[in-house]
């Protein structure tokens, strides 16, 4: 394989940070479950009680997996982390494969390399090895962290090995997707759908017909029953299907032309609909997909929280720390819990707001702004349309989160009375989110390369909500986070003053940024 090692070395160098972040993320996902479960329950009797309550919660089972040995730490780790861990490994594999296959072909760099003296399969093989290694690192770190916790070594290794194998499976399917499609976007579409279907099949299977779970690689992983009667044969299923998918990718690779996929690219409309040609219509079109995606994701997360219903007490245990973190505000246990749940969902929604506010910077960095601004569209109108999209999108995403929470709660308890308060509580967070958007706008107008610092605001919000009560930080430090000032609905009544003050600050930031943008060089 002339050249494969050269490619591989280059890939490994380029990917080392990716490796690191994904591996750290996945390890934390597993390890933090072990830590948090251990801290949550003071006695085994309480643990047993909580486990029984979880076993009866269909929504949780659909989300996480079959309920087995939930009154043990190992059982909890497998239950809470494996489905999401498999998704993490799948996404990592998908992005690694996408980066080195379709994205390279699109950029034309790959062509340059292929034209030099390397064998035809060199870059494909290097991509494969790169992704296999990345998943191996993931599995080893997860297993090592669990062994170190300490949990039973054999079962811990099984959890890590299953994770690696899931990653290998999704590496294989991503490689196939890369041969079928002709653009990076559609490749991510196909490979991502495989992960989503795998998750969906086992979700339906675990609460309904178990056969469906056996059609999913995540189902096979969980079918290994680590920490609850470990068996290895489902791992063989993962390994053989991963091998088969990879082999298929190699066969397909030989049958396609460079730069194209086996599926012809789907043509789009030859004409623009009238709405596209207004400044706002255009900005909305660019962000539509991301608004819908975030709304869906945040709403699902809300549903998951809401479906806890009134079982709040058993779930969060009775340790002082966890009560301090998960129950805040002046009301009772349930209201206090949902006040924090709404804040959590809102902080995740802030991810949309900040990335949306940074969109103009992305457009400028990618060199797509100049051609637009060289038309009758003025700078102010262009940027205002982007701001309007961020505002509308933020309202939509937060409404999705609030409705999800309310509906989830109503489904489990049969009580629809909380839909409105949850929705209103969630919409209150429009104000702090827009402060962060305004900060991004301000930085974008004044010093564009610092605009990404607006993410620090999200980080600050997370720290203050979850660690503020535990760390007993002084009030002014907590006050730095715009998320700190709102009333904790539904545990406290909504207060207009902080809401309006935050909105005014957001508007001030945003207008200053707009004015600065109108005066600076555009690149």
């Amino acid at each position, binding site marked *: 394989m002339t050249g494969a090692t050269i490619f591989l070395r280059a890939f490994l160098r380029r990917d080392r940070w990716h490796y690191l972040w994904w591996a750290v993320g996945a390890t934390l996902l597993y390890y933090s479950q072990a830590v948090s479960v251990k801290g949550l329950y003071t006695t085994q009797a309480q643990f047993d009680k909580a486990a029984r309550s979880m076993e009866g919660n269909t929504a949780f089972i659909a989300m996480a997996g079959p309920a087995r040995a939930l009154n043990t730490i190992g059982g909890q780790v497998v239950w809470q982390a494996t489905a999401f861990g498999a998704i993490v490994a799948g996404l990592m594999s998908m992005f690694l494969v996408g980066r080195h296959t379709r994205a390279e072909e699109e950029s034309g760099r790959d062509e340059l390399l292929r034209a030099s003296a390397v064998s035809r399969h060199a870059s494909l093989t290097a991509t494969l090895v790169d992704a296999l290694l990345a998943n191996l690192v993931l599995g080893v770190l997860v297993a090592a962290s669990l062994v170190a916790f300490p949990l039973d070594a054999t079962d811990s290794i099984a959890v890590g090995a299953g994770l690696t194998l899931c990653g290998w499976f999704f590496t294989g399917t991503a490689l196939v997707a890369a041969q079928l499609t002709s653009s990076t976007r559609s490749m991510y579409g196909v490979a991502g759908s495989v992960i989503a279907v795998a998750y969906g099949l086992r979700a339906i299977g675990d609460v309904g017909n178990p056969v469906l779970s056996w059609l999913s690689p995540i189902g096979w992983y969980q079918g290994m029953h680590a920490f609850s009667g470990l068996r290895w044969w489902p791992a063989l299923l993962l390994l053989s299907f991963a091998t088969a998918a990879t082999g298929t990718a190699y066969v397909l690779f030989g049958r396609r032309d460079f730069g194209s996929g086996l599926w012809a690219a789907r043509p789009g409309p030859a004409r623009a609909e009238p709405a*596209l040609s207004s400044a706002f219509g255009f900005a909305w079109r660019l962000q539509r997909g991301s608004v819908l995606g975030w709304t869906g994701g945040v709403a699902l997360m809300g549903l998951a929280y809401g479906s806890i219903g009134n079982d709040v007490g058993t779930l969060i245990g009775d340790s002082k720390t966890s009560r301090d973190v998960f129950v805040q505000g002046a009301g009772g246990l349930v209201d206090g819990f949902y006040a924090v749940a709404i804040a959590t969902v809102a902080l995740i929604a802030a991810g949309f707001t900040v990335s949306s506010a940074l969109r103009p910077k992305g457009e400028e960095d990618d060199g797509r702004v100049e*051609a637009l601004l060289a038309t009758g*569209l003025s*700078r102010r109108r262009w940027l205002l349309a982007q701001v309007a999209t961020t505002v509308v999108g933020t309202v939509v995403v937060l409404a999705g989160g609030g409705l999800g929470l309310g509906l989830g709660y109503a489904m489990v308890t049969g009580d629809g009375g909380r839909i409105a308060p949850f929705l209103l509580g969630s919409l209150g967070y429009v104000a702090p989110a827009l402060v962060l958007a305004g900060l991004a706008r301000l930085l974008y107008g004044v010093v564009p390369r610092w605009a990404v610092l607006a993410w620090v605001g999200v980080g600050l919000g997370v720290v203050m909500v979850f660690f503020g009560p535990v760390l007993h930080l002084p009030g002014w430090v907590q006050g730095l986070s715009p998320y700190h000032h709102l009333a904790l609905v539904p545990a406290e009544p909504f207060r207009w003053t902080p809401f309006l003050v935050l909105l005014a600050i957001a508007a001030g930031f945003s207008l200053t940024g707009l004015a600065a943008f109108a005066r600076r060089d555009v690149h």
Partner: protein
Amino acid sequence: MGGVNDAIIEIRGLVKTFGTTRALDGLDLTVTPGEVHGFLGPNGAGKSTTIRVLLGMLRKDAGDVRLLGGDPWADAARLHRRLAYVPGDVNLWPNLTGGQVIDLLGRLRGGLDEDRRRELIERFELDPTKKGRSYSKGNRQKVALVAALATDVELLVLDEPTSGLDPIMESVFQEYVERFRADGGSVLLSSHILAEVERLCDRVSIIRAGRCVESGTLAELRHLTRTSVVAELARPVTGLAELPGVHGVDVEGSRVSFEVDTPRLDAAIGLLHGVGIRSLTATPPTLEELFLRHYGDDIATEEEAEVS
């Protein structure tokens, strides 16, 4: 025609710095109505920077810039409706098709000529249903060209618009630029493709290190340079090297070769004529030589040496 006040583009002493880099250093440029003006210079000379100032993307540090009678910074959006711009590096939106981008840019400029749009798409053999990422560099440029040429504007600002086009598409492009000029439009064309410049441009400006070093018609520029002469003479010639404007005289018996500043050609040939010419070839500078003379560093230093 061509007076200072009705110039399409009028730049005097333009200065633009990026940190410590002085990208434009007192640049002058005039484009008169109805002309195709070639804008030439080596890489990094400041052509794109000039165009970005003209389009109101960059703020000038000093100098006067007038575009279509207005201030390109203060009246940007209003002026932009009267011009169309094609960058050399066209970046499209990944999820919009070429056809959508053409409509978008055209409508934001105030409207497209539907018939011309259809004709251009056909002539450029562009598939308007493909999405942004799947276009090659040349096809991305065609998208921007169709959007520009299908709008009714007074001025085309083109920054290396054909760097990705194949020769057939290049000639389609030239045809449309000629048609645009015949309809009374003006063009500022930055280009490294000399054949294109020679065919299209009425006048050219050559810039180097942020200054205009030469400006005029191609004939005028040729006039400024040297003609190479090789002659077979009846007798050896004397006094040729002493003539003003004659360089590099090389005598081998009755054969003589030299270069002469084109305005001095008459005197040099006169001297040869006095001796008796058996054969003579006089080669005007090719466009390449013309530009290399202005682009290359060594020639600049040679000129400086001659001046001192």
